[in-house]
């Protein structure tokens, strides 16, 4: 099926002239470095100018250099025939595999691809596969790729992607050389001037030249007398020369230039490789970085220069700059993704600007609000009422993001949710490279509004996305804030994907939250909700120790402590308010804080004014004396009952 390589068609037998030197040099280069030099190599010339010879010579030379190579020569027609036969036999895949394992594929007469869509597709696939595997393709045609009618654009660009060389009609000297060699091959000798006369005819291809030579050889053999210049003209039907005796062309009786031609084409190949190697390196670098989207002006400038100079250093420096840009862009991406699209990060000639932009972004990317240092975990009053909650918190701290995510701290106002939230935040922030966002929902909402106003929502978003934990106090305040819920939803997913800890506080279990989108509620409920109960006596006692101990000198009165601890309190906050009242009374009456004073203050007349505590509040304030103090909760204007009744009767 596949034509074997004709052993007669080798480089040694190839007569190199000006018209085909480039093609032969390229062919030799390809044979020496298959798959790496020019791939594909596309050779075109009129018929009979040595395409087939060159293809086979490439095959021979490559085989000689590396006998293990799998070299396949075939004409397009043979390829088509083989393909059809394989398809008919249901062996299409085997056929493809066979050709994909070829190291050097030499395809002749590819101009016959015209009007063969399916073969074009097949060849495209094959050439893609071969090129990807680093295998060499050499194609020959009687016209350049772009002129092959009806050829797929992709094939044209693929063929043109390697090297396209043409071979012209051999010049006079080459024709003489060809004739001499052929005559030698046939062990025939002619009188001097005969071959030169034949060469003087401008045959359009070598086959016609051979035809003429054959006629002369035959004529000489039949006549048994050496053919003369004049008879040669006669045989070939050429007009007799006007000045007989003088050769048509100033025949150079130089020795055959064969050895020198071979030498010349070898040197040409070597020089091409050596001299322009640096240009190839630069072009390669340009292609590579351009492909990655970087400006390559600096490298292009190199190509304009005449000497290789320090191209390798420049390329290396360029590569280093690109690496730096990549690092900067990656960093900026994390801080402020829209800025990473800035063109300075694609231009190694503007390194300083890129550094400046990165620095600006770095500056602008302040970390999100962190936990308050006023609430260390050690100060959290522990007792039987919150034992379970604390144990869960410790488990989360041991394994943040993995154990329970999210954690929702549920409890009435003043039960220590905020304290515990901040305490968790502090503990998480103590981990290496931790960025803990810990803030109240109100601040979260306000920040988003400011970001929307300042048109830097992306920046705001990336700021939080960078955090390794997100702790949000009073999540119920999100009610009705759709945009914030949307943002939180996205953040939520981001954090869960990355196994980063989420902690929320809410006054009611997640499922009972109102005004919060269902998708957030279910996500909150999907983690762990722990309830902080009203403080028990142990907790109250511990809290009192802390409250009294930090403001009222050494050793608070034991009786006072016991009295206050025994009083039921809905929350630590209420307890704090009680202590404050006692403290105020003591200050007003200029006496020490004692259990008696406390009793009179707390159980006698209610204090004249209500102290607002320094804490952030999350709900309505319930007085320790009982009864609702909030004006909003009072009904001040009752409807007139009579009006309503008439209305109803109508």
């Amino acid at each position, binding site marked *: 099926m596949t034509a074997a390589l004709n052993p007669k068609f080798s480089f040694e037998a190839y007569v190199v002239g000006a018209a085909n030197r480039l093609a032969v040099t390229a062919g030799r280069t390809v044979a020496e470095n298959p798959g790496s030099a020019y791939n594909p190599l596309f050779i075109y010339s009129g018929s009979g100018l040595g395409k087939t010879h060159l293809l086979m010579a490439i095959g021979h030379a490559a085989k000689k250099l590396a006998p293990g190579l799998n070299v396949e020569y075939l004409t397009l027609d043979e390829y088509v025939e083989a393909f059809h036969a394989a398809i008919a036999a249901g062996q299409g895949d085997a056929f493809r595999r066979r050709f994909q394992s070829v190291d050097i594929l030499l395809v002749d007469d590819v101009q016959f691809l015209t009007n063969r869509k399916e073969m074009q597709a097949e060849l495209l696939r094959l050439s893609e596969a071969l090129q990807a595997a680093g295998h060499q393709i050499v194609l020959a045609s009687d016209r350049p790729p772009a002129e092959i009618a009806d050829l797929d654009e992709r094939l044209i660009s693929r063929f043109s992607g390697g090297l396209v060389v043409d071979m012209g009609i051999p010049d006079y*000297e080459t024709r003489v050389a060809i004739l001499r060699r052929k005559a030698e091959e046939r062990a025939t000798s002619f009188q001097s001037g005969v071959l030169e006369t034949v060469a003087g005819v401008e045959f359009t291809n070598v086959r016609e030249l051979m035809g003429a030579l054959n006629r002369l050889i035959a004529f000489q053999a039949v006549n048994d007398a050496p053919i003369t210049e004049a008879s040669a003209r006669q045989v070939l039907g050429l007009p007799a020369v006007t000045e007989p005796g003088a050769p048509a062309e100033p025949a*150079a009786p*130089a*020795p055959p*230039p*064969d*050895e*020198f031609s*071979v*030498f*010349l084409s*070898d*040197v*040409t190949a*070597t*020089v*091409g*490789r*050596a*001299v*322009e*190697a*640096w240009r190839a390196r630069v072009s390669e670098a340009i292609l590579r970085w351009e492909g990655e989207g970087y400006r390559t002006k600096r490298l292009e400038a190199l190509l304009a220069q*005449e*000497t*290789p100079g320090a191209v390798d250093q420049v390329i290396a420096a360029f590569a280093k700059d690109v690496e730096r840009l990549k690092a900067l862009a990656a960093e900026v991406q994390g801080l402020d993704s829209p800025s990473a699209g800035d063109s300075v990060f694609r231009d190694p000639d503007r390194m300083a600007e890129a550094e400046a932009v990165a620095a600006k972004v770095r500056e602008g990317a302040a970390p999100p609000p962190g936990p308050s240092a006023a609430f260390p975990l050690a100060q959290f009053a522990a007792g039987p009422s919150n034992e379970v909650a604390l144990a869960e918190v410790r488990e989360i701290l041991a394994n943040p993001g993995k154990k329970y995510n999210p954690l929702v701290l549920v409890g009435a106002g003043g039960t220590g949710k905020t304290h515990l939230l901040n305490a968790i935040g502090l503990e998480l922030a103590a981990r290496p490279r931790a960025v803990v966002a810990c803030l109240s929902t109100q601040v979260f909402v306000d920040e988003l509004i400011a970001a929307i106003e300042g048109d830097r929502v992306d920046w705001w978003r990336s700021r939080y996305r960078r955090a390794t934990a997100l702790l949000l106090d009073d999540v119920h305040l999100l009610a009705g804030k759709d945009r914030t819920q949307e943002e939180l939803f996205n953040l939520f997913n981001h954090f869960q994907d990355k196994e980063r800890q989420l902690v929320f506080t809410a006054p009611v279990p997640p499922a009972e939250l109102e005004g919060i989108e269902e998708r957030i509620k279910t996500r909150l409920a999907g983690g762990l909700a722990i309830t902080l109960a009203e403080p028990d006596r142990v907790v109250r006692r511990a809290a009192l120790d802390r409250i009294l101990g930090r403001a009222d000198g050494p050793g608070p009165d034991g009786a006072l402590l016991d009295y206050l601890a025994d009083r039921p309190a809905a929350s630590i906050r209420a307890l704090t308010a009680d202590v404050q009242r006692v403290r105020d009374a003591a200050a007003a009456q200029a006496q020490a804080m004692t259990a008696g004073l406390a009793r009179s203050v707390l159980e006698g007349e209610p204090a004249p004014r209500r102290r607002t505590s320094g804490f952030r509040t999350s709900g309505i304030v319930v007085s320790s004396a009982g009864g609702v103090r909030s004006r909003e909760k009072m009904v001040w204007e009752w409807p007139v009952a009579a009006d309503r009744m008439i209305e109803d009767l109508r």
Partner: protein
Amino acid sequence: MSLVNFTSREITCKIVYYGPGRSGKTTNLHYIYGRVPEVRRGRMVSLATQTDRTLFFDFLPIDLGSISGFTTRFQLYTVPGQVYYNATRRLVLQGADGVVFVADSQGRQLDENLESLQNLHANLLDQGVDVRAMPLVLQYNKQDLPKELVLTPAELDDALNFRGVPSYPADALHGTGVFESLKGISELVLKRLAQGAPA
């Protein structure tokens, strides 16, 4: 001498044929001269004594035409082989881009070969040229002589080629190995271009 001139886009290779007296250096040049088309070659300058031995030196310029946009010229020189012309040898060797060492394959000439090779190294060293960096090929000439007179290329490799450079058996009179040697040295010389090290 600058090997590659990127500004004027010229490549000039100075190749020196070195070796003991009567080893066939000039024969090499003559053969090349005969194969190079007239338009490509300059006048071969040969300063020889009456007895046909090279007294001064041979010089053959070859114009390879434009290669990759570079006007490429080869200048082939031979040195006088006789021991007492060392000053001339050093002069010719100056600025050489590559050396073809033409050794006489005859067994009885082995000592002369070694002496000449050492002389080459000494002269290069004198000119501050790193012997290991200088492109060099060996040509074992006169392989056409009767077997009993000559050493085989393998034997000569053992005796002379301690740097492991390319070596070519040759018969300069009939042309065998002449262009192979020239091609070998050209490749070595031109390869240095890629490393950007003009000699």
